């Protein structure tokens, strides 16, 4: 009888642990009455966010010179395409959204509106290019045709020795597009891995940091990593949808 409290405590601890799981992923894999991704969210990404362009300004705020691809590990196969970039031809072919695909859209200056489309799908709308990205936390049955935004699978990450937690999104099934406005290409074999992190600062600003790794066996010699950041806005009063443009 005297040993009961310790034993009970341990048993109850394990019992509670098995339900709390200590991590969203554990909850997701635990079966039973699975909670939705929205319920498990360790951070609130919803709301309006504006690009705060303090890096790569010359590659993002204006269209760089034709043929320039500094900071991008472009492969030899990419060079002919870079030098042949023709925005008028893209426009005529209806490809004016080539620089608004998933591998580049977060670096295009503009605003994001992030909402939950349903309990297991996070939706990201952009006013620049009026694109919509859907981050699916649930497995998808059938693959859809290739698109600018591709197919995105999302997971809440568990903090570990090599992982800081947060949201991971992996996107593939892309239409070939441009990493930059001036035609630096990525192929339809590209995969985009993004990590979304939030940072709140003492001055009241909240930033969203999107560490993005693009891997492309065709047009890149190695991973291309950028980390655009966004500032939280109180509402959507500055939301200004504009169509895709291959020239601007």
């Amino acid at each position: 009888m005297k040993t009961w409290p310790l034993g009970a405590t341990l048993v109850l601890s394990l019992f509670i642990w098995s339900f709390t799981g200590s991590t969203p992923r554990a909850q997701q894999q635990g079966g039973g009455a699975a909670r939705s991704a929205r319920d498990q969210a360790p951070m609130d990404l919803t709301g309006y966010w504006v690009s705060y362009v303090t890096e790569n300004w010359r590659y993002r705020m204006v269209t760089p010179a034709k043929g320039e691809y500094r900071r991008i590990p472009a492969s030899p196969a990419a060079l002919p395409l870079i030098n042949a970039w023709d925005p008028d031809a893209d426009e005529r072919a209806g490809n004016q959204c080539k620089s608004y695909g998933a591998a580049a859209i977060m670096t295009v200056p503009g605003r994001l509106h992030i909402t939950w489309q349903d309990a297991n799908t996070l939706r990201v709308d952009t006013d620049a290019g009026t694109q919509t990205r859907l981050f699916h936390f649930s497995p998808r049955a059938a693959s859809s045709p290739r698109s600018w935004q591709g197919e995105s699978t999302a997971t809440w990450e568990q903090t570990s020795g090599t992982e800081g937690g947060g949201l991971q999104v992996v996107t593939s099934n892309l239409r070939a597009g441009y990493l930059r406005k001036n035609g630096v290409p990525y192929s339809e074999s590209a995969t985009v891995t993004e990590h979304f992190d939030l940072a709140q600062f003492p001055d009241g600003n909240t930033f969203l940091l999107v560490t993005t790794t693009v891997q492309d066996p065709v047009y890149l010699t190695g991973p291309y990593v950028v980390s655009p950041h966004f500032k939280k806005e109180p509402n959507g009063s500055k939301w200004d949808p504009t169509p895709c443009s291959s020239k601007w």
Partner: protein
Amino acid sequence: MLIKVVARSAVVACAFVALTAGNASAQFDFVGSWQPIASEDVQNDTLNVDYLGLALTDEGRTRALSYDESQSSMLERQCRSWGTAYGMLGPFGLVVTSQTDPTTKQLVSFTIAPWEDWTGLTIWMDGRQRPSEHALHMQSGFTVGRWENGAIVARTTHMKEGLIRKQGVPLSDQATIDWRFYRHGNILTVMMVATDPLFLAEPEVVSKSFRLSAMPLDYRAECVVAFEGKEPGDSVPHFAPDENPFVTEFMNLYHLPREAVLGYAETLYPEYRKKIKDSYVPPPACTESCGAAGNFVLRR
């Protein structure tokens, strides 16, 4: 009786779960050598007048325009080293070590080792108090950090006045730098937010990624003072701010708007892109130094 025992045990169990879950999910391995991934430009071509992506106050801009890089040839300034912010702006990687209390084995600090021309950064993780606001300011400042939601959150104060760009953009001794260190697999992303009531109209935000290196990195090198043409007692090289001869160099090279190159706050937001849409003329096609390793090489 049984109900009482179970209830008491449940309380203890819940407390145990809460405490252990919090600790287990709080930290990643920060120690190691991290190679820079140079895929984002902050300093562009390091031309003399390039304040792209900065939001300067008028005073900050005036000070920056008065800077002459020959100042670094003065004997007394050659080894003063760059301030804390340069750790994210410079070209090198991060060599991170940890220091623990020999008795308690608890973490005391992380140290990012200095380079030849950078002071390094010590992040005190043991909850110590900041020094008095009147305490001595150092090039490296004083940095206190903690774990928060799987990231290292830190703040640097007590810096000496220095530069936030090598081209002479100043950062005052009243500035603070907030840091976030995130790890995702073998990628470490550092977010630096510098705030300065004197020289920055809005925070300077730099987010830079590093890749874990299998080989240890070592950037230690001795700073050597040598005669570079400036005699002791010479006046400090400078320009009158409105007579800086390099003010149009970067603008002309890339056809960039004046207010963007001179660091006006409005240029950091998407609205500005729309504003210049009809006036911007792209530069002619690139013919040299166009590729991935083209930094620090002028395309003329």
